[in-house]
């Protein structure tokens, strides 16, 4: 799938280190993602996949040292995390955070209304929101008892990940970044989460799916696959690349890494 106009997201030579340290994590990322596209980013542990996700979402523990990120033609890096959310960026967390004492639906309604308010839209009242939430809960087969619980508190790994996709469905982002949404899921939960994600695919929405394993991509079929190693994208291709990786393992990209290191 190609886009005739400028891509939704354009990352140029992005270099990132851990704030207040010398630890470099991203060493020059170039990536373009168009509306309607699903890009998978794969790579071994420590290759910088999750850092890329968090930098796009605005996490302040990382510092951009070079490069730029344009989102819908605008400088994304100049925006705070909540401004990015208002602009339509959503990240499904690898480790969703617990907030004791704050009801799940209360949290989500606060988020949705904060976004709507800042977009100049009318806020949803409790009844309208509940109707919306109930509809979206079905997408990920969320148990109704979940509504009475605190944000992620006492959730199993699978419930936490489902909750992330449920939040995504309600918040309806333009660019969704899924950070290892498959980790810690058994095969049934994986299918449920993947079908939830698939139902949210649309021509207006772009997705970046970060994963360590190919198996997620059996369910969420990507348009493009990128392989990261040591802070760079070292290979890009279509979904065949993912299958090749599955067979040969990350050794496939290791030579590239060694060449880089030798240079």
């Amino acid at each position: 799938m190609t886009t005739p106009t400028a891509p939704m997201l354009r990352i140029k030579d992005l270099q990132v280190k851990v704030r207040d340290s010398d630890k470099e994590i991203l060493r020059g990322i170039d990536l373009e993602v168009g509306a309607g596209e699903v890009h998978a980013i794969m790579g071994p542990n420590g290759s910088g996949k999750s850092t890329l996700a968090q930098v796009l979402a605005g996490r302040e523990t990382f510092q951009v040292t070079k490069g730029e990120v344009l989102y819908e033609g605008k400088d994304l890096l100049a925006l705070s995390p909540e401004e990015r959310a208002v602009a339509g960026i959503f990240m499904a967390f690898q480790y969703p955070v617990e907030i004791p004492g704050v009801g799940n639906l209360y949290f989500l309604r606060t988020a949705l209304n904060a976004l709507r308010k800042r977009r100049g839209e009318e806020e949803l009242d409790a009844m309208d929101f509940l109707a919306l939430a109930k509809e979206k809960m079905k997408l990920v087969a969320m148990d109704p008892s979940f509504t009475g619980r605190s944000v992620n508190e006492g959730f199993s790994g699978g419930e936490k990940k489902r909750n992330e996709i449920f939040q995504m469905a309600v918040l309806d982002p333009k660019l969704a970044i899924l950070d290892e949404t498959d980790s810690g899921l058994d095969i049934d939960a994986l299918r449920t989460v993947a079908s939830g994600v698939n139902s949210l695919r649309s021509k207006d929405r772009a997705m970046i799916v970060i994963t360590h394993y190919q198996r997620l991509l059996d369910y969420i079929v990507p348009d493009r696959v990128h392989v990261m190693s040591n802070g760079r994208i070292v290979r890009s291709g279509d979904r065949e690349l993912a299958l090749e990786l599955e067979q040969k393992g990350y050794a496939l990209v290791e030579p590239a890494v060694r060449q880089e290191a030798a240079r």
Partner: protein
Amino acid sequence: MSTSAKALQELTSRQYKYGFVTDIEADTVPRGLNEDVIRLISAKKNEPEFMLDWRLKAFRHWLTMKEPRWQNVRYAPIDYQDIVYYSAPKPKGQGPKSLEEVDPELVKAFDKLGIPLEEQKRLSGVAVDAVFDSVSVATTFKEKLAKAGVIFCSFSEAVQNHPELVKKYLGSVVPYSDNFFATLNSAVFSDGSFVYVPKGVRCPMELSTYFRINAENTGQFERTLIVAEEGAYVSYLEGCTAPMRDKNQLHAAVVELVALDNARIKYSTVQNWYPGDAQGRGGIYNFVTKRGACRGRASKISWTQVETGSAITWKYPSVILQGDDSVGEFHSVALTNNYQQADTGTKMIHIGKNTRSTILSKGISAGHGQNTYRGLVKIQKGAAGARNYTQCDSLLLGSNCGAHTMPYIEVKNTSSQVEHEASTSKIGEDQLFYCTQRGISQEDAVSMIVNGFCREVFKELPMEFAVEAQKLLSVSLEGSIG
């Protein structure tokens, strides 16, 4: 909300219209404390002799006492001879003429809390001249209570109209010799509330200090006494979520509760006295003695407090579990921001058999705030089968504040059970990022997380109070992050 807001507005004007008799408006007593001053206070209040004797006994005892220093708070020495121990209500027209003359910070806080305009004026001492149909509200309350046989009046009125009850119960829970500040209060207390609920009566409404007649200017040395006879029930609300300014720096109140067989008393407090400015200048010292006695079988006393104000808060609402099967509860949220200090907690003294107590304390420290939980669970030899459960949680915002937990446990028999759990957590960068990534501003995220942390305590507050308490926390936390 709107009905009570209206009631408040109406009552507001009543207090200005009828609240104080002209001839006491100009009254002052010279600075300092001696027996003459106490005699003068007692005379001005036209007290019977037993009251004067009691005050004098307290004063003489106070002279032999030393100000305690064991608490985990710091403040400059207080000059007790530099305090005016009796000051009559502020005459009309001496305060600010309109809200424009009131500190804009204060007005901003009022607005955020959604305090009605007329109430804002009353709280900041603006003379309210608007005329409302006022008498009816107070009268309705009074009639309803009188019909049920409940006495709810100022302490001074009780001394005049029900001296036998005052004589019987005053000092029966907190004796005049109890501690330095309670003893000082006993000698000089100005006014306060008196509640008496007769046998078998369930008080038909929440009693709030809002609706107490002649409630003005009792802040500094307030004294409250609540008695619930056999099988009676009463819920009492003290305080106000609006920021309360007071020119008196030292506040030393005493509250006594007495519950007889099967009686229940629920006492809820929201304390928001002036905490001082962001640099820690000014602010109220709130040194309070609150204690309840579960004197009868299967009686129950619950304390719920939300403490966000005062430069220094020092109080331990306690329960003496004397009757067999009696129950004591303490639910607390204490927040310290900027340079505020709080040393607060409870004492549960188990004397009767199968007595039970629950302690749930939530401490929040932000800025340079210091928050100490100090609690005593004492199970005496005869308290067979007694049980206590204590949970103390502390939440830290930023790295300049402190949380301290000091539990004291004394168990003198082998059939009792005591549990203590404590936790300290920090609002994590990961929690904040999670919220902001979803579009919630940092400030709203902090107040959401803090309110979640306090939810178990807010659940214990009457509905309307709980909503206000949540707003109050948000306002008190402003500027504590980032």
